[in-house]
């Protein structure tokens, strides 16, 4: 019973073949995806990849050049923003400086003609929710950056919109506050169970807060998947490179053995990534994450791995909880490999210039054609 309900219930948001062209600039290309109710989706991509443009079209600012956006199953192409039930937190917050924090939060209630008697209580409830209960009478410029973020969130949520849109509202905060606010978003989103689309170019934020991640590049959706899948099964080299620290080893295909692709570099092989099935001789690149490489002063120190190469440490950066090495491996091309060493027990530092052995497993090398 519930299953048929779920299947019949329309998606909170459906985007179908949406394009946006600004005189010559193709900002969003053929975007198509669905988002279920109550989910937290993050759109992740480099600067200029079309994230804001896509979000603004969902909010109703700027009509798609082609394609259609559906909210709760209804096409909203001709519905202006103020008639959509969408709360949006803008990149620069856009709080009203001539109002107090509480007035800012009350504003959407007044605009949406909520019963005047119910407004003060409701405003207070949402100020409490974002932990600003006592600061309602402050003017915006009397609040700290993090407090302003909270006002913006309360203002976007107070009228219980069907959809919450966040356009990198945390980008301007320092790292500690940003991480705190990310968890705060997650808590509020769970508490209210509101469908949320968040835009960011911070991959960590995307992994931490999201149910699902869309990776965009050059206006195109590269992959939509759960955070773990985005990380472990990137669909192409772009996604692999954008999320996490990834080494790319360039080469040509020597032979293919089922899922295993053997390179023309002796001893180096990988696993088919995203159905890439090249002919022998085709150019290919193996993607290998920095944390999937083990490092040791000799081969015997590496333990159970099926691929081993010798190299020389060219750089070692102490980052606290880990050491980042750059290791030049003669047999794998010019670019040194980046290796994370999380070894809080032995504190074995490898000095710059020392010879080391690197080891990993073939199944962790994803092979792409592009």
């Amino acid at each position, binding site marked *: 019973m519930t299953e048929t309900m779920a299947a019949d219930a329309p998606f909170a948001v459906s985007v179908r073949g949406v394009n946006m062209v600004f005189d010559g600039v193709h900002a969003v290309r053929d975007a198509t995806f669905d988002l279920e109710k109550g989910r937290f989706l993050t759109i992740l991509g480099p600067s200029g990849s079309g994230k804001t443009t896509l979000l603004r079209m969902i909010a109703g600012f700027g009509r798609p050049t082609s394609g259609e956006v559906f909210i709760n199953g209804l096409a909203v192409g001709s519905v202006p923003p103020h008639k959509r039930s969408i709360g949006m937190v803008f990149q620069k917050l856009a709080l*009203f400086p*001539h109002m107090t924090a509480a007035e800012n939060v009350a504003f959407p209630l007044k605009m949406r003609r909520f019963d005047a008697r119910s407004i003060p209580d409701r405003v207070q409830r949402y100020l409490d929710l974002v932990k600003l209960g006592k600061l309602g009478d402050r003017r915006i410029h009397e609040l700290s950056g993090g407090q302003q973020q909270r006002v913006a969130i309360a203002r976007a949520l107070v009228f219980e919109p069907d959809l919450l849109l966040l356009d990198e509202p945390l980008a301007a905060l320092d790292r500690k506050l940003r991480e705190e606010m990310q968890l705060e978003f997650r808590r509020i989103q769970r508490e209210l169970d509101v469908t949320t689309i968040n835009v960011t170019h911070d991959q960590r934020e995307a992994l931490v807060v999201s149910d699902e991640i869309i990776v965009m590049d050059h206006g195109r959706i590269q992959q939509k998947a759960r955070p773990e899948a985005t990380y472990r099964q990137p669909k192409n080299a772009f996604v692999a490179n954008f999320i996490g620290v990834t080494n790319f080893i360039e080469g040509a295909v020597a032979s293919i053995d089922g899922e295993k692709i053997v390179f023309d570099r002796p001893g180096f092989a990988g696993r088919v990534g995203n159905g890439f099935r090249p002919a022998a001789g085709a150019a290919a690149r193996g993607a290998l994450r920095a944390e999937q490489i083990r490092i040791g002063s000799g081969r015997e120190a590496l333990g159970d791995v099926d691929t081993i190469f010798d190299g020389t440490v060219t750089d070692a950066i102490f980052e606290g909880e880990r050491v980042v090495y750059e290791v030049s491996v003669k047999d794998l091309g010019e670019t040194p490999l980046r290796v994370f060493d999380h070894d809080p027990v032995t504190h074995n530092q490898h000095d710059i210039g020392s010879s080391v052995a690197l080891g990993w497993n073939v199944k962790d090398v994803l092979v792409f054609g592009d």
Partner: protein
Amino acid sequence: MRPSRTSYPLSWRLMDALEAIAAAVWPRSFSAAVPWLMLLPAVVLVGLLVLGLWDMADGSFRTLDTATFLPSDDYSLTNYHRAFTEKLFFTVASRSLIGSLIVTAVTLIFAFPYSYVMVRTRSTVLRKFLLIALFLPFFIGQVVRAYGWLIILGSQGMVNEALGLVGVSPIRLLYNYPAVLFGLVQYMLPFAVLMLAPALTAIPEEMESAAGSLGANWVRTFIHVVLPLAKPGFIGAGLVVMTLSLTDFAIPAILGGGSQDFIANAIYDQFFRTSDQGMGATLALLLVAVGSIMVGVVFALFGAGTLAIGRSK
């Protein structure tokens, strides 16, 4: 080989010479005084104005001796008494005051959409067109423009001729109060637009998008967000329009045809027709006082708007 002559161009040599002269006339050790020296011309100008005012204050207490046509030697408040009691002055003063208020209100209403479109339009062509249309009147000058209105609105002007074609007998469009106010609004519009535009530019467009996503249609966005945020611009523009139209001379003179005098026209008459310099000075000082009070009241009520000066806090 000789180095190329352009490696040290003539203009640089000239600059060197000028700098050498400057250094001789104005030793480097005086350089701390330079900023103050640059302020000097402005200080002198304002100082002269104050001197003039002082002179007029002196004159305002002397009555005209009708026998000799010279100001009296003794001081009295007669001129001030006349200014406050004679009906003519009351009529002129209230006409100017009410006129300037009406002109201010109407001008601001017209100027707002103009600057809004100018600031917000995505079309650079339209923006350039609006800017040029704004500056064109400045090149023409006030008197010429007023004469232009005579040509258009006169009893044999274009409007009346057009009306004649459809069988309407000529209407008196000029030499009345509305004509003067109309001329003033038209004259003030560019000033108001120029004062409003920076205030509107300072409102982030995202502010309006935010209001939209929060449920405000454009009317309510305008009332609750744009208008309050543009307040400094309205105050600045309002003050400039109000003071300029309160003290205007040419438009009441030309479009009013002598029947619609403003304070400045009355002052002119006292100085150059009746030759009653004392009375002219009195009216002038009263005008300064009224203008200052109006500005003061606006400052006190709303703050100084875009005219506020000093480092922002």
